[in-house]
């Protein structure tokens, strides 16, 4: 499954100094993304999933943030690049799809022209070639009558079509890696499925890597091969989809899975995770999840758990021993199936 290594994030920290204290949006994060895989990043709002990727692309205010670590994209550290070097990577080898297609396209420019701009800023092509490429891309993402629709303004598109146009824009230069930041959150459920399928098809047809950022475990379960669960700017757990969904190791992941509705468990109550996400300025001591964790024990409020791979390429950050984890999870699973039975 694993192709060429595209992106390697090593010990990334992104801190924003504010008058109220330092916001530690990302606090020691490492992961790898390969060609041909969809890498899902899951976490609730404020867990640092978007900041991680905006930092990689240099789309955060570099002056306002303290960034350390490495973000190696095809061997080059994006964090060390000048703005101009980064610009040459953005939209060419590494492109991004954003959450809200309603606000992500400029309302005053025609959709086709906005895609044409994306082509022209990295390639010197004749007008006719650019136009042909725009129409080709709109067609590839499933916009009907692409020649006519290219002349439309964004407000004349539906939400799903705008997201398709955004995807077309992201793909014009056959990038190696596409970062999709909550690409379906703002869309209707039926359209969500279409867009996810489109992203999945594109990944396969173009043989690219995709980072799919979402707060929706269902989305990840559908299309991702690897999953990273983020909590308070750190990776709680990182593994293949099967590992994370079938043998989850982190109590936070357990909570997420249990709070997800299952169609076959009709009638059972969803189990919410108690408490609320921690302040990123005044983090809890020790493990950031310990105040909400039902399995916390003696070291949890004192020592920050290291992210350790206990074999199987499935690292997690939790003080519980692997045996305890397995035991607790199987108990929780049994309890859940009993309730639903």
């Amino acid at each position, binding site marked *: 499954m694993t192709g060429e290594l595209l992106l390697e994030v090593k010990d990334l920290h992104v801190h924003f100094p504010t008058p109220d204290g330092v916001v530690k949006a990302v606090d020691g994060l490492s992961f790898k993304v390969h060609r041909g895989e969809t890498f899902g990043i899951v976490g609730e709002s404020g867990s640092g999933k978007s900041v991680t990727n905006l930092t990689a*692309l240099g*789309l955060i205010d570099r002056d306002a943030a303290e960034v350390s670590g490495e973000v190696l994209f095809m061997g080059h550290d994006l964090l060390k690049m000048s*703005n101009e070097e980064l*610009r*040459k*990577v*953005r*939209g*060419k080898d590494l*492109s*991004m799809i*954003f959450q*809200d297609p309603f*606000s*992500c*396209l*400029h*309302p*005053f*420019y025609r959709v086709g022209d906005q895609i044409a*701009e*994306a082509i022209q*800023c*990295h390639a010197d092509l004749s007008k006719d070639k650019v136009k042909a490429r725009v129409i080709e891309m709109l067609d590839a993402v499933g916009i009907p009558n692409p020649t006519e629709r290219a002349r439309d*303004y964004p*407000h004349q598109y539906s939400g799903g079509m705008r997201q398709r146009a*955004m995807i077309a*824009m*992201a793909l014009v230069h056959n990038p190696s890696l596409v970062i999709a930041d909550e690409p379906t959150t703002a869309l209707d459920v039926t359209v969500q499925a279409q867009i996810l399928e489109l992203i999945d098809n594109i990944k396969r047809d173009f043989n690219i890597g995709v980072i799919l950022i979402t707060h929706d475990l269902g989305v990840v379960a559908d299309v991702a091969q690897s999953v990273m669960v983020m909590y308070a700017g750190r990776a709680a757990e990182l593994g293949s989809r099967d590992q994370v969904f079938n043998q989850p190791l982190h109590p936070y992941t357990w909570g997420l899975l249990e709070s997800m509705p299952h169609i076959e468990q009709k009638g059972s109550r969803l189990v919410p995770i108690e408490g609320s996400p921690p302040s990123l300025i005044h983090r809890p001591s020790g493990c950031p999840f310990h105040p909400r964790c039902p399995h916390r024990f003696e070291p949890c409020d004192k020592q920050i758990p290291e992210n350790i791979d206990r074999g199987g390429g499935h690292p997690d950050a939790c003080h519980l021993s692997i045996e305890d984890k397995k035991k607790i999870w199987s108990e929780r699973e049994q309890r859940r199936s009993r309730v639903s039975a």
Partner: protein
Amino acid sequence: MLQYIIRRLLWSVVMLLLISMIVFVIFFVLAGGGREVAVRMSGKNPSPRNIENTIERLGLDQPIYVQFGKYVWNALQGDLGRDYHNGLPVTSQVLSHLPATASLAIGASIVWLMIGIPIGVISALKRRSLMDRGAMLFALMGVSLPTFWLGLMVVFLFDFRLNWYVVGEYERLTVDPVLWFRALWLPWLVLAVTQAAFYTRMVRGNMLEVQGEDYIRTARAKGLRERSVIRHALRSALTPVVTMYGLDVGILMGGAIITEAIFNIPGIGTLTVSAINAANFPVIMGTTLVASFAVIAANLLVDIVYASLDPRVTYS
């Protein structure tokens, strides 16, 4: 589109009718009724016979709505009545004062755009820099300095001290362009300072707001050069400026009373002031109608232009 313009034009006529009705009623009440008007219209120390003649000639004994109807009918044919004092047609007086006001308004508006937009944009791009702080100080001062004070100060400085300017030299552009410019450059600046300050703040605010928009992030994410990203931002940030600009120029076309008075420019403002001082009601009516017309026309123009700038706006 054409349908929209026609509909708006018809509404403009209704608006003008309403305004003239209000002004007409005020005029009659203020003037003290038809007899008082006749007294004023009959020259110095008129005899009762003269006054009766005037009343009859102008139909001042008729009901007010008949007189209003006549006024409107005449106005539609371009006749705004006659000056109380010199008996000249109001229309020709207003028209002869219009070029000076138009020169002042349009010239000043170009100056304030040339100051306000670049400073506002640079200020937003170099936020919190020395340049930005300086620009904001200028904006604060510009907004705070009253025109009557600033105008008098610059006249004192440039006319009395430095002899770079002479008040009251105004000549029409078509007659003597050099004199025209020499008389207008300083009032342009004075009038532009306050407006430029407003525009600077507006443009800066718009730019800062737009820079936080998702589509600007998209523009960066697709790898556009910073100059193109700024172009995207400007397109959004400057569009509302068009609206403000049109309305401001429209309002100024009704006469920049203080500036015209200080620099002794024979425009609508000066005409209005002297008419008010002399209780010269037909002239007041005339300038008021011209001012209203300018504002209404500017509004219409702005709406048409705006709809062509923002594709989301439709004519309906």
